[in-house]
Structure formats: structure tokens, C-alpha cells
């Protein structure tokens, strides 16, 4: 499902953000990516979601070979994955419903399907009573649930979550992790970055540790 082979990413400077990354995540797996701030987690996710081009190496995600992908194919590749960000990246001037339905609208689905699917997703993340509220009217945990719902509403094969609990208190973090577990149980591959080792320890998942752009440790929790 996700495969990195000798991937390097160098920023101007030069700063080597990723060094010889090799990893393979199978369909339906739940994998944590841990590491301190600046270790390369976000760069790895950006490269994986075709937001940044790797300096070298091969990447395959959700059936797309990102080395061969054309610019005009990238939006269609992104519709096959779901991405959750630490800062939520919600549209402030749109309601919960409008934020969550966005991927379906972009895909050009029928209004009736969008309505049903969005409401179903809102129910799954427990925000039915707040679906007409704007992000500023929600707590951090609720905003993150909206972001997760938006990443999942179009039923992607892969969910990439970059520090989804980074801005949340422990209780809310657990709540979000439970939600990701639930998604994974339904067959979605989940790749989740976090620097919260305690949170990782409490869950029995595969863990990849990245430091200074190098995956230095692989362990099964």
C-alpha cells in the first residue's frame, strides 16, 4: 500500500530532511511514525501525499508510482488517500457539514450521495448536533474529528495523519486514537505520526522511529 525505497529529500541550504528512507506498509496495517520535532515526519508525509517531490528514490502509494506521476494526475491520486493535519486545516468560513462534504463535492458526486455520506460520517465522528457550526465554535478535539471525517468521507484506502493529537489534551488524544482504530478496523490503512510515546505505548501497533531524517528503529509494540 505504501512503499518507500531509498528516498532522499534535500531542502535548499542544503538541509537533508530525509535520508535513505526504506519502508513498506501493507494494506490494512496501522503504523505509528514517531520522532522528535524536526525529525522529518512532516516532510515524509508531504512527500507521500505528492506535496513535495523527493530528491531521489522511489515511492509507491495507493497504486500510484509517485516517481512517474504527472502533475495533472496528482489531484486524482490525492482523492485516493486521506490526510489529517496537526493544525486541522479546516476552512473557517464553512460549517462542519461543508468541510466534511468538500472531498465529495470535489469528486463531483451527486448531491443526494453527498448528503447521505456526509451525514453518515458526521454521525460516525459524533458531531451530528454540531454539523452547522463553524470550526471556531468547536473545541480542538471536535475540530480534529471534523478533519478526520473529511479525510475519510471519500473512503480512501490510506489515511495519513500528521500529529493528529499534537494540539490536544491526553483525554482528547485518546478519543482521536480510538477513532483512528475504528477506521483501521474497517480496513483502512492508517499511517500516523506522533511524538507522544506514551500514547504509542498504550496501543499495540507497528512503530517506525525517525530521527534526523533517518528511520533508525523499527519495532513492534
Amino acid at each position, binding site marked *: 500500500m505504501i512503499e518507500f525505497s531509498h528516498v532522499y529529500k534535500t531542502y535548499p541550504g542544503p538541509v537533508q530532511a530525509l535520508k535513505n528512507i526504506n519502508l513498506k506498509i501493507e494494506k490494512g496495517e496501522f503504523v505509528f511514525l514517531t520522532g522528535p520535532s524536526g525529525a522529518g515526519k512532516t516532510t515524509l508525509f*508531504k512527500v507521500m*501525499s*505528492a*506535496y*513535495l*517531490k523527493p530528491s531521489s528514490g522511489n515511492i509507491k502509494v495507493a497504486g500510484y508510482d509517485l516517481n512517474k506521476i504527472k*502533475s*495533472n494526475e*496528482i*489531484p*486524482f*491520486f*490525492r*482523492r485516493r488517500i486521506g*490526510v489529517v493535519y496537526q493544525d486541522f*486545516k*479546516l*476552512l473557517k*468560513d464553512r460549517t462542519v457539514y461543508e468541510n466534511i462534504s*468538500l*472531498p465529495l*463535492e*470535489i*469528486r463531483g458526486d451527486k448531491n443526494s450521495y453527498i448528503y447521505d455520506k456526509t451525514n453518515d460520517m458526521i454521525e460516525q465522528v459524533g458531531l451530528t448536533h454540531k454539523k452547522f457550526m463553524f470550526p471556531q465554535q468547536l473545541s480542538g478535539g471536535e475540530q480534529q474529528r471534523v478533519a478526520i471525517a*473529511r*479525510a475519510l468521507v*471519500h473512503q480512501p484506502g490510506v489515511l495519513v495523519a500528521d500529529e493528529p493529537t499534537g494540539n490536544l489534551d491526553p483525554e482528547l488524544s485518546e478519543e482521536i486514537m480510538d477513532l483512528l482504530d475504528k477506521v483501521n478496523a474497517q480496513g483502512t490503512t492508517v499511517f500516523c505520526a506522533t511524538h507522544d510515546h506514551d500514547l504509542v505505548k498504550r496501543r499495540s501497533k507497528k512503530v517506525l522511529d525517525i530521527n534526523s531524517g533517518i528511520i533508525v528503529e523499527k519495532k513492534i509494540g
Partner: protein
Amino acid sequence: MVSSYLKHFFRTWQQHFSMQLATLVVLTATFTVIGISILIYQNLNTVLTQWGDSIRMSVFLKEENPEDLSLIEKFKSFSGLENYEYISKQDAANLFKKQVKNYVPDLLFNDEFENPLPASFELKFNKNWSNEKVTELAKFAQELVGLDNVEDVSYGQGWVKNYATVVDKFNKSSWFLVLILLFGSLFVIGNSIRSSISQRRDEIEVLELIGSTTWSIRAPYLFEGFLLGIISSMISLMVTYGIYKWQLLVMDSGLGILGGKHSLNFLTVDIQLLIILVGGIFGLIGSYICVAKINNGWAADQVET
């Protein structure tokens, strides 16, 4: 789709009301100046057409000859000729006497009056006059003067030529002005869209990340520019109409110089539609110049808008 673009448009107005209003005012002013220029152009030509109806050409002859075939053939060769009439020396004298009878009443009965007036042909022309036609008329007059039996030609050359020159110069300068204003409108719309894009950079990033194609991101901004152009050109037509009505009132009160309100017409429906269309197209082009910078895929994070 259009409804989501309209939502985008109204959202931009809600969030950046003062910027949008300023853009609309500047664009409206621009299109109003364009509308007024076209209005003046149209009416100058109308006046020329109407005055053309009163243009007569007198072809004075050296010798009396009402059936001068070569001359008559020459008259007929001019496409704008409506009819011609021969005026003999005696007719000319009688006409002259009638015209001056109030000033020299004795002249009517003066048998010793020695007639100095030549025989002539009076030519009347069609109503549809344009600047080009005036040039043709001048050329035609010159050709007539060169003929054997023609002494002189008179058709009010002075005012016709002067008026035609004024119309011509106005046409050229107003087209230049219109072009400058249209290009200016591109920048005004472009700046508004650029500002809109810049303030919505986060939204664009999110749309890119969840799989919007470049064109689906650009489309609402193109629509925004198009609609701004359409709305401002429509308002400008209303303003132009207001100015036109006010001008008629001014003329009614005796300040007009072009012969009363009935000689002035508002822009034709075709021209009004054309102005609205041009507004929309320039809005579209102005916004396209900016949205063309929105990229997707690998280049998305390197773009500055």
C-alpha cells in the same frame, strides 16, 4: 456548480467588502467613461448624418447648358447622389431677388439689374453620412472643378470639413482612451483577484490537498472576475444613462449646442450588450492573469500569489 461559484463570490464580498466595493467603484467609473465616449462618438456621427441631409452642392457653370451629358453622367457616378436640379441664370437671379427683397425691395422690379449669377446644378445627397463619405464628397467636388464647363463648386466645405475633422480626431482619441481604460480594468480586476487569492491561500492549499484539480480551484476566481466585470459594466450603463438624461435636461434649459434633445440618442441595445460582454471578458482575462499562477501538484507549495 454555478451556485457554488456564486457562494464563493458572495463569501468574498462578505469577507473583503471594502476591497470589493473599491474595485467595483473603479471598474464602474472606467466603464462609465468608456460608455460616455461611445455615446459621444455615436451622437457625433448621428449629428453628422442629420446635418448631411441638409448638404447641398452647387456646381456653377461657365456656360448655360441644362443638358450637359458629361456633367450629368459624372453626377450619377457619385453613389450618394439623391437628385439634381438645373438652375438657369434667370432662375438664380429670381431666387436672389426673392432672398434679398426685405433688404433691397426695389430690386424685384429693377429691369436694369444686370444678372451676374451663373447657371448651376444643385445636387442633393442621401441621408446616410459618415466621415468617409465627407472625404468622398470633397474628392468628388475636386473632380467636378476640373471639368471644362464648371466654374466653381460650393457645398459648405468649411463646416463639413471642420466637423468631419472633429469627429475623426475624437474617434481616434476616444479609441485610444477606451483601450487604455480597458487595459487599466485588467489590472484593477487582476489586483482584486490577486488579493482574493492571497487571502484565501490557506483555503487553496486545503483544496489542493484534498484533490481539487487546478481548474476547479481556478474556476471560482475566474467566475468572480467575470461577474465583477459584468456587474460593473451594467452599473456603468445605468450611470451613463443618468448622465445622458441629465444632459438632455441641460439642453432643454437652453445650454445645449447640438440642436436640442431630439438629436441625442442613448447607446443602442447592441452597444449596451457589447459593453456588458466586454466587461465580462475583460473581467475574465484580468482574473485569468492571476489565477494562471495557481498551480497544483508538486509546484503548489512553491507558488507565490
